[in-house]
């Protein structure tokens, strides 16, 4: 599932800007999501591909399948890691949004003065 970055907040007049690498974060999430999608497609596609070589038998086939079994175990782990990393970046972006909104509110309070 693709991750969605939060919309960048508008910075209110007089509010301190929250420094956050929006472009880099968006690029990273896009890259991570693309890798997740591609890896998932490949995992499914490879299962189909393997069905085309049922005639391959013998020691080398055994070696191949053993290696693929280990590889596929790693694959699911990496998939999870990629997705988790994308989610963590989105979470950081959301935190940046919240921080900006808080600073916007602080600025508004300063401008309107104490009642």
């Amino acid at each position: 599932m693709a991750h969605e970055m939060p919309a960048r907040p508008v910075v209110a007049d007089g509010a301190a800007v929250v420094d956050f690498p929006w472009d880099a974060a968006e690029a990273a999430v896009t890259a991570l999501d693309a890798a997740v999608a591609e890896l998932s497609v490949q995992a499914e596609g490879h299962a189909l591909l393997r069905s085309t070589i049922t005639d391959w038998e013998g020691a080398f086939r055994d070696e191949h399948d053993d290696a693929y079994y280990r590889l596929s175990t790693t694959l699911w782990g990496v998939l999870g890691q990629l997705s988790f990393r994308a989610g963590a970046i989105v979470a950081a972006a959301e935190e940046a949004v919240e921080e900006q909104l808080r600073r916007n509110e602080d600025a508004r309070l300063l401008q309107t003065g104490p009642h």
Partner: protein
Amino acid sequence: MAPRRSSADPAALSQFAAATLDALATLRVRSDAVTRSLDTLASAGSDVAVPGTGDVPAELADLVTDWEHLGTFARDVANGFYWLLGEVGYHGGVVTFADSSLTRLGIVGYADRDEAIAAAEAMAERFRDLRAEGYDGLSPDAVHDLLAMAERGQHDPAFAVAFSESIGVEGYVDLTAMVRHAYQPGGIYEPVPQAGLDGVEVLATTLSTALATLPGLPPGEGSAATAGWSRGERLDPSFVDELAGGFDVEEGRYNTDFPVRTNTDLSVLLSFTAAPTSVAVTIANGRLTPLLRDPERFDARPGDEGDDWGDHGGRITNYATMLGRDPDASARWLADEVRGTQNLDLVLQRGPDRDIPADGGRALAEVVEHGVTHHDDALRSGLMERSIEVIGGDQDAIHNPHLPDALARGVAHNMPVIHGLIDREWLAGDEAGLPTSVRNTHDFLVEVMRDGSAANTVVGAVEEFSFDAFRDLPEPLVDDAGDADRRFERTEVLEGVGAVQGLVLTAERTVIRDSLEDYLAQQEMQGDLLNFGVGVFPFGGTAQEVIGPINDILDAQGVSLGELTAANPAEEYNEADDVVAIRRVNNDIGNLVLLTQAGGEGPATPLGDLTTEELEELVRRIDASSQAHDDQNHLVGGIERVSDRLVADL
């Protein structure tokens, strides 16, 4: 126990491997994008905590590399089936072979990359143990068992890189030296037998596989299978620096050290190594060039003291063998300059006597031949021109007995160079002086044509060059009255071809006058002067077969073959001038024949291959062709202009 067998439909397996590797190319792009974007993100500033890159990019890249390695394994197994089928024929479907037959080809590595790396580390560990045991643990069996550990891994890039990085260049040299020691127990110096050389070959194959993974190699040089691998998964470029001279093999070593390694050991290893082109050039510049530059340096030869490697004991020969495996590397190395001197110069100047390498110069000559016949016009012709300058300049000698043949084949590939070295203005003018380029070319051809086989190659090349030029002659121009005009362009081409012929004929004349007997002996035509005269140019065929028609052609030229041969009875074959005269007439006949045949279709036909009727028809056509005779006169003009001035100058 029955041998284990593998079955597969090689076509299906090959398609499976190709589809796997193709799909992984996309995943590699995604993986690289993840690495780049997370690196960028990690280096950016932020007021809130941004998660670090962690191990994810490396884990993903590692996964892709593992998968590519697995796909390559499947491809190699499929190729193994195909190669075995090449021996018996393949008609499709599932086939079965013994696993041992597939591994015998030595191209199937490991399926699991981690397993390959573990195997490499185990072999490196075993090597270090064996080295630590010194002479006590060394035997042909021990070395054989150690090298057998690379049987599966030698073609596996993961294995090869891990093994190479683990033992380094020093380890490779030590292991090669240990092979030598193993076959020379107790200091008995016997050349290492074939079994030992086979072991070095396994080591060299492993090194070749590792070198193919080097990052930054020019397109087409490295292994496509490892193109996407990260730098850490490939051989470090510093390895090449060490191979090319950074590692001083004998520095700080004593005879009491084990193994007693020598520079020759490294050269033996590299003689079996198929390095990428640019790497081979770098190694040769670092290791071979200094050997050629050193006038005192000579190769050990079979029977010499310290002749441990037998026919493989010559360092110059070994490095030349490495280069000669790759025509591109050969040509590029020859063109390279090291400390202001071109490598080609060093090769051509090498000699005489013991300075000729252990193999008599064969390997170096092969390198030169690769250079002067290279497919790159500029590279090839540059090397040819430089060869002419060096040999035809002050040197006036070829020391390496294998070089004349190599250079003659170079002449055959570079006739436009020879043609171009004859100065047009000089040829058209009246000045008597001889341009340096013409003199050098003549002197070069003399040295090349002292070798009979090389002389035949040069003469054949001139014949082919002439025929090609005759095929493409510009049409004769006709003036307003319909008479033949000065035909300037056609005349210029003919005189240029004649000049090339004159150059070669004069060079041949010099050789014949220097040593007619040797020349004829080399031509294997000593027994029949007439055959020699007719046989060298333009085509083969015995005098008896073509004597009648040749007489007719000569009559048309106002020359009597009978007079020529009568003036040269067999016992006076050493009369060089007579041979030269016949040679000139013979050349004229050849030109008439070629000019006439060039008007038809297909290649020139040797006179000896023509029937009597065809010969008579050819003679009729020659007689009837005023154009051929007119063209012949311009050719003769070019020949005489060059040969007269050369003879006068010489």
